[in-house]
């Protein structure tokens, strides 16, 4: 079996499972945030339901915190009331993005089944967990019962080899994969990542890689845990069993071998994540906004590389650069390292940790015809605001370099000439 099948078999209490099996799996962690919760809180109370296990439930406020309008304020209030009523202790309001909070605060470990009411819950596959998303109504069921049905997915394996080139991060890898798969190429499936390039990849980049599999339609993304994983988890979780990994003879519906040693920084152009080209191919496109943040671009690795481009430089006068760290822990580290000062001196705006501009809910909404280069995860039409705005997606390096130049640029080019 592959690692996903092993986790699901164990959660279903079966010796083995096969793709296509429908199982009832015990869930180890259930997560909701303040925009999904209000979609089921009322029903939960009306039915007089009780939380199945308070240790296994986490509630995060991250989508529009502090609130950008009355509706968002109401969502926060409802969330707070629900948490108080059910005496939930795993509650993080305004402390960061749920997908960052979960591993940072020790709610993720290899082999666990994690279900969140947010599509990017798949992020946690970076730690060898089976992590996937459902909607609000099913989260009510999960909060009450602690288990869910799943169809065991077919798995696709991506073997990425070669030394990772300079300025190439998890974001560039997944955008390259989108250009091959398309945004529906992994629908209902597992995307498992392996190979020497994955071994070299930082935890931050692994999270970004797994985070974005949902936009190829995948049920989950996963990386076999290794020494890097266990080093990250040390002190955060009770040491997990270390034998968990895909069998050498595990079966996959398809295997992709990709040599990434010559990969260039990638950009997804409007209005689709698979409309991907090398940053150097579209250089010169003028931008109005640049955004560094989210669960795919607001971690330490992203802030550090951004600072490299912003140190002793100014954000282009025609550009608004918004930087939103993914969590308070990240913000504190960035402060200690002097990165925040660098950002402020460069003319960037620093916001509190939250989902920020990514979903168009506030902190950088795009107006008509505005062009944004963003280190976030999605560029669907209207995602960040007006339907006539245009979103280009790239790594934090590409975004920071572009913010200085006022136009899209290959970060390696600026790095050389800086």
């Amino acid at each position, binding site marked *: 079996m592959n690692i996903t099948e092993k986790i699901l078999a164990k959660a279903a209490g079966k010796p083995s499972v096969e793709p296509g099996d*429908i199982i009832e799996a015990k869930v180890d962690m259930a997560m909701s945030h303040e*925009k*999904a919760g*209000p*979609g089921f809180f009322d*029903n939960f109370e009306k*039915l*007089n*339901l009780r939380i199945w296990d308070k240790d296994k439930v986490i509630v995060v406020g991250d989508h529009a915190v502090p609130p950008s*309008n*009355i*509706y968002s304020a109401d*969502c926060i209030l409802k969330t707070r009331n629900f948490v108080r009523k059910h005496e939930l202790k795993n509650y993080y309001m305004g402390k960061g993005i749920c997908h960052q909070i979960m591993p940072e605060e020790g709610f993720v470990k290899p082999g666990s089944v994690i279900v969140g*009411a*947010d*599509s990017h819950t798949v992020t946690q596959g970076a730690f060898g967990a089976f992590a996937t*998303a*459902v*909607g*609000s*109504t*099913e989260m*009510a*069921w999960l909060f*009450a019962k602690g288990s869910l*049905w799943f169809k065991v997915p077919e798995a696709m394996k991506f073997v990425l080899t070669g030394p990772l080139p300079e300025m190439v991060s998890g974001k560039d890898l997944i955008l390259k994969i989108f250009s091959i798969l398309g*945004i*529906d190429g992994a*629908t*209902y499936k597992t995307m498992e990542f392996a190979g020497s390039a994955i071994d070299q990849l930082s935890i931050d980049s692994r999270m970004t890689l797994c985070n974005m599999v*949902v*936009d190829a*339609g995948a*049920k989950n993304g996963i990386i076999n845990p290794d020494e890097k994983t266990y080093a990250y988890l040390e002190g955060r979780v009770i040491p997990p069993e270390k034998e968990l990994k895909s069998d050498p003879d595990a079966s996959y519906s398809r295997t992709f071998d990709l040599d990434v040693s010559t990969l260039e920084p990638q950009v997804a152009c409007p209005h*689709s994540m698979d409309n991907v080209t090398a940053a150097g191919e579209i250089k010169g496109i003028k931008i109005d906004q640049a955004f560094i943040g989210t669960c795919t671009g607001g971690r330490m690795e992203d802030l550090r590389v951004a600072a490299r481009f912003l140190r002793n430089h100014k954000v282009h006068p025609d550009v608004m650069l918004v930087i939103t760290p993914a969590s308070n822990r990240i913000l504190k580290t960035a402060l200690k390292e002097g990165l925040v000062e660098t950002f402020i001196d460069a003319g960037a705006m620093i916001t509190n940790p939250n989902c920020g501009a990514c*979903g*168009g*809910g506030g902190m950088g*909404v795009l107006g008509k015809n505005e062009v944004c280069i963003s280190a976030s995860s*999605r560029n*669907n*039409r*209207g*995602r960040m*605001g*007006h*339907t006539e705005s245009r979103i280009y997606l790239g790594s934090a390096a590409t975004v920071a370099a572009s913010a200085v130049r006022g136009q899209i640029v290959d970060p390696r080019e600026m790095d050389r000439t800086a």
Partner: protein
Amino acid sequence: MENMIIHEKVLAKLGDNIATEMITSSAYVTSSEPEELGKIACKGIDPDFVDKMKPGGVLVAGKNFGCSSSREWAPVALKAAGVKLILAEFFARIFYRNAINIGLPIVECEGISDKLSVGEQVKVDLETGELEIVKSGEKLATTSIPRFLIERINKGGLIPQLEEEFSHR
């Protein structure tokens, strides 16, 4: 079981890769109430969508319908706007679960987006999976829905199921 056969008119068509953000854009969402969400369904990609759907009927779409964000607002908005059935080439997985969980029937049928036009009547038997284009009499196979999910659709979704289960305790 009852209500297995849905016989309705196609009222609107949408293309491939319609993301949940396009169905319920954050720019327009000001409430999680179905009635309010219904008013903004697909605003931004088809300003006339709500008017078209008013009589209640079928929405036909292409590939990967409901991709991207897990927001349940999307199927809730469509249902509240009058969508009684969605037929698509295939759905994104979270949308698929969400729609069934709120009691909105959705059926996958290869080639459907080219075969059905607005105004046509269509008949779908959820249990047998048979789809009939009424005018031409053409019958098409659809992807089968597991039995327990058909029951869920017929009960009106997951909340009525939970209600039934917990009221017996």
